[in-house]
């Protein structure tokens, strides 16, 4: 069995009276593509933000590659090897596509690479993500599909061990979806462990080696995609008791 790369224990986050994530235990194994699914408002994005250090957990611990990271600075967690994409794209609109990726290549890696090496790496990353010919365009001129790819490219430029993808397929047409799935598969084949939040269940079934279901902030169950998607509790969570 593969080694555990990241493990969360008793992870909780409350916003005032609302408990968005409650007492979640989660293990991510090295090299896998783990799918995180659940209905809207289940706490999937919050869980991502807790792992990436964008939000501080109210309780619980996160261990990454043997080190405790919960409550650390976001930039420090990024340099330790966890990169995340934003569900709603957030490009640096005043910078070119290449410069967007350069930020990740400059600051997301440890030790800091020399200028030229970072630039080369950023260009390679753009090529992998199919954005090379747009390198000098202002990032605001990209389409939504392009911007989602830019999110991935930027995160990838930090050379993460663990990549958190938050709904990178949302809003894409079938052709763009297939291309992005191919990209994600390639990234994983290159040795990067991936956790993805995704509503496209067909894509999740084809891509993920394991699924975790989150409902109302709690971990409902985990297992192989086929077993999880056929489970009556999952169908009930998505569609209501009448369909289970």
């Amino acid at each position: 069995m593969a080694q555990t790369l990241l493990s969360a224990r008793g992870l909780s986050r409350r916003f005032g009276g609302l408990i968005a994530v409650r007492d979640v235990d989660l293990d991510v194994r090295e090299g896998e593509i783990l799918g995180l699914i659940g209905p809207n408002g289940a706490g999937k994005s919050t869980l991502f933000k807790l792992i990436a250090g964008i939000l501080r957990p109210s309780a619980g611990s996160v261990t990454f590659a043997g080190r405790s990271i919960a409550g650390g600075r976001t930039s420090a967690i990024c340099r330790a090897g966890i990169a995340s994409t934003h569900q709603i794209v957030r490009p640096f609109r005043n910078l070119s596509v290449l410069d967007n990726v350069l930020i990740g290549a400059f600051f997301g890696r440890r030790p800091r690479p020399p200028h030229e090496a970072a630039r080369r790496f950023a260009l390679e990353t753009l090529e992998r993500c199919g954005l090379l010919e747009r390198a000098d365009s202002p990032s605001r001129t990209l389409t939504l599909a392009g911007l989602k790819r830019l999110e991935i490219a930027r995160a990838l430029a930090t050379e993460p061990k663990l990549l958190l993808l938050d709904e990178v397929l949302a809003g894409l047409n079938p052709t763009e979806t297939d291309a992005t799935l191919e990209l994600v598969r390639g990234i994983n084949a290159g040795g990067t462990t991936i956790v993805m939040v995704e509503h496209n269940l067909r894509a999740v079934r084809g891509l993920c080696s394991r699924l975790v279901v989150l409902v109302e902030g709690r971990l409902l169950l985990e297992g192989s995609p086929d077993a999880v998607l056929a489970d009556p509790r999952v169908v009930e969570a998505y569609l209501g008791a009448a369909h289970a």
Partner: protein
Amino acid sequence: MRRRRLWSLLALAVALALPLLAPHAEYLLDVAFLVLLYGAMATGWNVLGGFAGQVSFGHAAFLGIGAYTAAILVAQGWPIWATALPAGALAALYSLIIGWPTFRLRGPYFSIATIGIGEATRLVALNWTSLTGGASGLTLSAAPSPATQYYAALALCCGAVGAAAWIQSSRFGYALAAIRSDTDAAETLGVDTTLAKTQALAISAFILGVAGCVYAMHYLFISPDSVFGFSTSIALVVMPIVGGLGTVLGPLLGAAVFTVLREQLEANFQNLDLLVFGVLLCAIVLFEPAGLLGIFNGLRQRWRKHS
């Protein structure tokens, strides 16, 4: 790139030779001095306000601390030139103290907090009479010659613009550009945004502090209302925006327009300068956010297309 270097060298040569070319044009030298001094101040403000997008309305605090440091040390028997470094260092140190609480605030909230910081600093200077002389201010005894003052301002301005050019082309400049665009996204890509903002503030404050020393050697009299005044802080915001926010040469250009215009208006129509700058600021923000430098670059591109 090469042509740009040529132009910079040419400009520097003219600037260096100005006191020799015009030995009796005292007024010209005086205006050139002010352009360089205010240009350096605006360039310093722009490191934080333009490059990093953290708009401060309290930067007079750093000018004031620099000016008072210089004046107090001169009273202790220091030569004025030797006070430049302590003036900058003390302003930078002060910036670290105020950066820690204010950088917890974002955007407009940060800007509002800096107004408070600037005013609080002025009030402390006004009431700490034993150190600052209070409202009656401090007077320096002897001024260096106009040419010496001019060269001091020129050195300061070259240093400030050089630092800005270096920052813009460096990795640090990338971090600041990312922070200006989206601070949270920059943080998730490994940029320690608080550290980078603090460094930008310290560099900015250092330049303003040294400028305070040059200010003191020129005016020979400093008071809380002159160096710590809110109107100085406003001028520091207006000049870079008019010239070109977040560019290397924009603040200097803005300072040149600001200084020359103000000299003319103050001589002929009292207080009209405030109205003119208000209108100018509105026009720039509405029609050409890239400032005068943006207009200039646009014209140059159009001219190239035609030829």
